[in-house]
């Protein structure tokens, strides 16, 4: 449909067809017999064609109006061009139309001249007069022949007719009776069997005894003079008869008469058709005008579209480029300036696209590097914080947030000095940062108190040049420091045990030997004194041995035998031992059935439980101990990039004693620190050591709700992050 209404070929074909049709119509109007018969058909074709063209123009007009209302690109320019083109075409066409009509009317009027008309009238009148004279002569002669025939009887009438016809020069003689029936006939053409019969009007006239003479066209023979006269009634025996004689024109006269008749008839017809002819020519000319105007209008639409199309494409392309679509490519329409403009636009979009691609590639590269750095920083155990030119936190990696025990987003955009506003414990960190930024050469060592625990952090920093800023790097060396301390303590313990244990056995043996040798010999008070002193020596040596063994245990770092352990079952087993004891221990259990099995060294966990139960038993007078396990399965830890870590299992051991002294809690797990008069101070230290070997955490606190009491809370991972699933033996860590 669009192709039919906007394509040039169908419209050109229609216009050419209409032009041909109008030409043929013009010829038909002019009297050309070839097209005269199809004049009406041509009129219909032209009218329909023009209606089609008109509908096409209206359709184009409506479409253009819609486009203008919709503010489509190029619509206004198209309408302006159409108006200009139409005006340029209309003015000369209308002027030519008016002048053509004027000349046409003058031309038609010039055909008719009063003198010519008069001459023709005179000629026809002259012809009639001449014919009348001629006809009167024929009438006289026919009357004479009628009288001659009247004298003939019926037998000789045929011969008489023939003779008279030959003498008179008539083409045909026919004798009719009163009823109009042919009585006899004579024709110069013997093949003519049926004589020409006068019509009823002539016969009626003759019956009224009025002769008839007229100039009648007879068949294909041209004009003939018809004379019908009555035969005298008396001679025919009372039967009225009539004689018809048909006289031919002489050739010359016939030609002249026909010529005058034809010219006069044609002139009369033309004169009569003058007005219809003008109307018909006006109609044809109007159709031509209409065709011209409509064609011009359509050509205006077509040209405007052709001109505006590349500009519209350009406008839409520009809009698309403004919208970010650089794939727009405009097809060059021509090799003129507009074509050059389109090519320039295409070059521009190509250059823009290339630049965008390069920028995008650079951005991707930068982004890739950034992601790489982020990934590296995210997996670093070292905390990294960058400050921008205004010394505000720009980035903070996961390790930094973990070390500082904060959310990374909390400190972004903040000055390091204001970190204490987020977390008061970060005051020391802020001071360290200030020192580093003020040019401290050696790494700053910061003690950070977080969530009841303390961390030791080493902090260094350097200035960034581009972009300007500052880089802070810090590590949590708590484990390292503690490990170093543990190693030192273990070494002390091992040497102490070794040095003390060596003389203890001779002392004990010597005391027992003294007792064995001299107790029986002595009597009275001496015997009692010796007995008491040697027993004391042996007991104290035993106590010292126990203490030395404890030191030895603390210093020992045996190989861990990791296996799947049910902590609940382990707790039940250990508790069962104490239930059978006669120390009246009141042990209460609250074990979480959802507790999963954990990967751990069962024996070492058992030692933890023994130490804690023993401590709790010794701490409370009523010997009430509550052991509980907990598991919060809904809390997940670990980021999305790694295998999610299961939450740790919790082991709580609580007594009903007075609780820990407040100043004891921070040091509760340090070795040789005890509240008991006879304790070695290694029970909780060993507990902490074993827990940390399992990757867990231990915390000492006092009960905040319910009855008073000390609480030791242990978190044990379900699976140690550093252990492989198939690995069951863990070598002791080597501290140096």
């Amino acid at each position: 449909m669009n192709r039919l209404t906007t394509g040039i070929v169908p419209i050109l074909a229609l216009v050419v067809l209409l032009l041909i049709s109008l030409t043929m119509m013009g010829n038909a109007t002019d009297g050309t017999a070839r097209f005269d018969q199809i004049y009406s058909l041509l009129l219909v074709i032209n009218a329909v064609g023009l209606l089609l063209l008109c509908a096409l123009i209206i359709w184009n007009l409506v479409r253009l109006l819609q486009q203008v209302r919709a503010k489509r690109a190029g619509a206004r320019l198209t309408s302006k061009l159409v108006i200009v083109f139409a005006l340029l075409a209309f003015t000369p066409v209308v002027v030519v139309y008016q002048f053509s009509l004027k000349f046409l009317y003058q031309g038609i009027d010039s055909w008719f001249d009063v003198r010519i008309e008069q001459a023709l009238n005179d000629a026809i009148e002259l012809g009639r007069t001449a014919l009348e004279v001629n006809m009167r002569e024929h009438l006289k002669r026919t009357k004479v022949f009628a009288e001659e025939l009247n004298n003939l009887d019926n037998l000789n009438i045929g011969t008489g007719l023939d003779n008279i016809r030959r003498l008179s020069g008539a083409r045909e003689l026919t004798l009719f009776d009163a009823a109009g029936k042919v009585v006899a006939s004579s024709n110069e053409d013997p093949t003519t069997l049926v004589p020409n019969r006068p019509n009823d009007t002539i016969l009626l006239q003759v019956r009224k005894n009025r002769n008839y003479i007229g100039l009648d066209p007879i068949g294909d023979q041209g004009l003939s003079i018809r004379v019908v006269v009555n035969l005298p009634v008396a001679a025919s025996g009372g039967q009225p008869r009539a004689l018809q004689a048909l006289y031919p024109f002489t050739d010359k006269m016939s030609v002249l008469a026909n010529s005058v008749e034809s010219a006069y008839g044609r002139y009369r017809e033309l004169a009569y058709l003058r007005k219809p002819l003008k109307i018909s020519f006006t109609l044809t000319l109007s159709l031509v005008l209409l065709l011209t105007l409509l064609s011009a209008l359509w050509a205006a639409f077509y040209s405007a579209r052709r001109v505006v199309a590349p500009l519209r494409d350009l406008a839409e392309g520009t809009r698309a480029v403004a919208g970010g679509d650089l794939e727009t490519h405009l097809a060059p329409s021509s090799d003129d300036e507009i074509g050059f403009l389109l090519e320039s636009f295409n070059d521009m979009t190509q250059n823009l696209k290339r630049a965008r691609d390069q920028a995008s590639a650079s951005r991707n590269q930068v982004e890739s590097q950034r992601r790489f750095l982020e990934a590296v920083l995210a997996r670093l155990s070292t905390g990294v914080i960058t400050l921008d030119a205004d010394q505000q936190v720009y980035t903070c990696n996961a390790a930094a947030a973990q070390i500082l025990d904060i959310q990374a987003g909390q400190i972004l955009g903040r000055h390091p000095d204001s970190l204490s506003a987020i977390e008061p414990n970060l005051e020391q960190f802020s001071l360290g940062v200030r020192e580093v930024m003020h040019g401290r050469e050696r790494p700053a060592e910061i003690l950070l108190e977080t969530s009841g625990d303390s961390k030791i952090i080493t902090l260094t920093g350097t200035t960034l040049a581009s972009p300007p800023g500052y880089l802070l790097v810090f590590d949590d060396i708590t484990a390292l420091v503690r490990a170093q301390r543990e190693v030192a303590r273990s070494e002390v313990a091992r040497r102490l045990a070794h040095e003390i244990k060596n003389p203890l056995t001779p002392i004990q043996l010597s005391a027992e030997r003294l007792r064995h040798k001299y107790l029986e010999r002595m009597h009275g008070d001496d015997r009692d004194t010796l007995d008491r002193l040697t027993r004391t020596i042996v007991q104290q040596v035993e106590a010292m041995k126990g203490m030395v063994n404890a030191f030895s245990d603390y210093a020992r770092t045996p190989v861990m035998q990791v296996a799947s352990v049910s902590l609940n079952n382990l707790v039940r087993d250990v508790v069962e031992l104490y239930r059978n004891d006669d120390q009246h221990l009141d042990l209460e259990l609250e074990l979480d059935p959802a507790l999963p099995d954990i990967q751990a060294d069962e024996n070492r966990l058992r030692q933890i439980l023994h130490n804690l139960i023993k401590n709790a038993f010794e701490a409370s007078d009523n010997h009430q101990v509550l052991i509980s396990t907990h598991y919060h399965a809904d809390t997940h830890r670990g980021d999305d990039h790694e295998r999610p870590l299961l939450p740790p299992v919790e082991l709580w051991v609580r007594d009903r004693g007075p609780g820990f002294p407040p100043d004891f809690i921070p040091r509760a797990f340090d070795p040789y620190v005890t509240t008991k008069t006879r304790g070695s101070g290694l029970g909780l230290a060993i507990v902490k050591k074993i827990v940390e070997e399992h990757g867990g955490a231990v915390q000492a606190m006092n009960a905040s709700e319910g009855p008073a009491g000390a609480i030791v809370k242990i978190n044990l991972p379900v699976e140690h992050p550093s252990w492989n699933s198939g690995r069951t033996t863990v070598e002791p860590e080597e501290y140096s």
Partner: protein
Amino acid sequence: MPCSANRSEPPHGASAGRMLGPLLLALLLLSGPVGAAGVSSAKSGFKVLDATTHSHQGQRLADLRIAFRFSPQAREALENGVAISVFVDLEVVSLGYLWDTTIATRHTGRRIQIHALSKQYQVKNLYTGRSSTYRSFSDMTANIGIIKNLPLIEEAHLQADGHYRLRVRASLDIESLPSPLRPLAYISAAWQLSSDWTSWPLQP
């Protein structure tokens, strides 16, 4: 006025032109004002007055009486040398229960032209080619209005128990007018002289 039996087809172009006529008329009616070209006299217009049939040698012949009442405009054109053609169309229709069936169609036509030199009206039978002349207009219209012994249909085609009707129409052929006159003739009532179809009983 006898007509030959093989006149079932009209002369070349006449029928096509008469079919084109209504289309052109409709187009002109749509495209411009009507009636400006003249109004027909109330008494003008063709009318079929009588139609009878009789049998002759196995053929059914029709006798027609038609009033050819020309409008002043048509007569003026005729007097000024414009030839005018009139046609008479006949149909034999078999009446059915549901619909009627045309079983025979016949046409006859006359071309009327004035002969200036002799001041007579010359009438030519368009199917036989025979000509006749008349001194007066009234004689001419009276004579062409009487059509006798026009062969209609073979008797054998008429069933004894059938019901038939003869339909007749007289019309002026605008397409035979000179081309400048045709557009006016199509939109002018003065040239719309054709009669309606008139129906007459036809006894088998």
